[in-house]
């Protein structure tokens, strides 16, 4: 069984936001508006965190794409009362929308605040309804949702390989954000495969993970600033 992981090269990331757009349309994420954004209720499975450092004229802006980290020891799945969130095949942390009771315990337990709640029924203009991705279920109101590493793409890749009577090639499965990155700053693959670029990069000296001291073992690595 693979152990899917991601490497994001912060030196290559331009902060263009293509990953956010790709994720939103791939995963049927409801449209946000300024009102929702101000209320802190817009949903972005993939987000770009920004932090400004220093004072004018010495200002530095750090940017950082942030999906769900699909921790190997996820604090969110531990607290779920109904196993609506769980660590499944490939080390992916999944979410079962039809089972979730909306208690939001997982959202408060996640130290990375990557989990989102559907405060309302998601909204799209009628023109957009026809373009929803049929592979991803539309969430009802009142459940928790989060980045799935485009789990449905893995399913499709497996089925395609089966229909062609071959083994699945590793690069058959790539999440939408990684696929769409114009700067090729993101890599995705099996962290248990020593040959894969993701594994090599995750062991580089520049590699680091967020809040590593918590012991959650996130499977998203950041390559920090190079020499």
């Amino acid at each position, binding site marked *: 069984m693979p152990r899917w992981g991601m490497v994001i090269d912060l030196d290559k990331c331009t902060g263009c936001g293509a990953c956010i757009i790709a994720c939103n349309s791939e995963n049927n994420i409801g449209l946000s508006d300024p009102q929702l954004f101000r*209320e*802190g*209720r817009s949903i972005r499975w993939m987000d770009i*965190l*920004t*932090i400004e450092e220093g004072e004018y004229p010495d200002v530095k802006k750090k940017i950082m794409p*942030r999906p769900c980290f699909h921790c190997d020891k996820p*604090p969110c799945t*531990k*607290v*779920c*009362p*109904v*196993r*609506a969130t769980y660590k499944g095949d490939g080390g992916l942390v999944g979410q079962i929308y039809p*089972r*979730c*009771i*909306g*208690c*939001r*315990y997982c*959202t*408060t*337990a996640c*130290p*990375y*605040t990557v989990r*989102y*709640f*559907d*405060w*309302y*029924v998601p909204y799209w203009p009628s023109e957009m309804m026809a373009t929803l991705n049929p592979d991803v279920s539309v969430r*009802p*109101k*009142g*459940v*928790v949702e989060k980045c799935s590493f485009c789990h449905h793409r893995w399913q499709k890749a497996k089925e395609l390989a089966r229909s062609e009577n071959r083994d699945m090639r590793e690069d058959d499965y790539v999440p939408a954000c990684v696929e769409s990155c114009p700067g090729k700053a993101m890599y995705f693959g099996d962290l248990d495969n020593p040959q894969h670029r993701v594994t090599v990069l995750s062991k580089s000296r520049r590699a680091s993970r*967020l*809040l590593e001291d*918590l012991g959650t073992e996130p499977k998203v690595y950041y390559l920090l600033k190079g020499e």
Partner: protein
Amino acid sequence: MADEKVKTIGEDPDDILLEPIFKTGRGFYITVGILLAIVAWAGIAYMSQLIWGLGVTNLNRPVYWGMYITNFVFFIGISHAGTLISAILRIAKAEWRRAITRSAEIITVMVLFIGAANPFVDMGRPDRLLNPIIYGRFQSPLLWDMVSITTYLTASTVYLYIPMIPDIALIRDRSEGKIRKLVYSILALGWEGTPLQWKVLERLIAIMAIVVIPVAVSVHTVVSYVFAMTVQPMWHSTVFGPYFVAGAIFSGIAALIIAMAVLRKAFNLENYIRRVHFENMSLLLLVMTLLWFYFTFCEYITTFYGAEPVHMAVFWEKFSGRFSPYFWVMCITCFVIPFTILCNKKTRTITGIVIASVSVTIGMWLERFCIIVPTLANPRLPYDRGNYFPSWVEFSEMAGCFAGFILLYVLFTKFFPVISIWEIKEGRKKSVQEVSERVESYLPGLKNEPERAD
């Protein structure tokens, strides 16, 4: 008592305790009407939440929990008054308990329903209410909560019901209506007051008094575990268990004092609930005030000295940041006001004690709020910062909770005596003799008994 003959109302000095059951005044209808209106309003507010979703609250990301969970912790805390205090007083054989144990136990049972309802109001999918039973996983602290609260509710209901049986039988004997007689007959479980029945009753009360104390302590510990089991800043604390229990008893005593004052006024019970009851309870409240200060001090000094940045972010938010008004009002209402009033003999009047209790109740609500919201508003990663102030829907639900609790209490007083009649009668007959026997049994020099080497 066993040899009690059937009497008509007015002959017995304790009939004043049965009066609210047999006579319904205008005050009762007005109170119930107002309370029902508030509860109905909360119901309408909840309907809007059902229709539009939890968006009608002001919860957001990252403040996923707000007023509903605050209310949950607060009301479960209030429930600690009753059963726990009544059980401790029974075990300690404190004679003055007789007039107040029943009113304390009612608080526990009624407020538990309100407290336990709050997580359901908070649920995004109330239609999946049964999922925790169908798919429940016991690794989740929420399941521990469900189990411990259900246990507590069962135990405290039994503990309220058993000592009520002789009183129910008394009402049965005095009732005239057919249905009324039937209902009370069923509830009285065939109580005739035989010596064997008395023996069983007393044995059961003694057992339940022991059982409910550890159950009560464990319940609020488990409530604190919901927070302490996560790694969030200032939640992941080992002192949370005892801190929550102490706070629960603290707010519970305050609620009991308020209830005593209200009952005394509403039902003219000045003869039963006297100054001594307020005096004794106020000393207990004073002790808890100091204990609360101790635990709060422990909690914050360890955070401050540890000085980890993520914890300090929450710490400064409470001390001087956006949540400082809540924090400092909490310090004043939980410590400064009750401590000043209760320390001073001049201000420790019944009015003063009630003011201190109201202040503690407000302060303890703020304490729960200060534990839950600032932590969520300041998560570990410095990118997501939230703010929170409840919406009208949340305020309506809170008003509904208070009104619902009072309503349940009022309805209870309509059907059952709020002071245990048989215990009062028994006290009159036996307690003086019992107490002097008890004193003789442990105080040397009263009787010419040879000293025993136990």
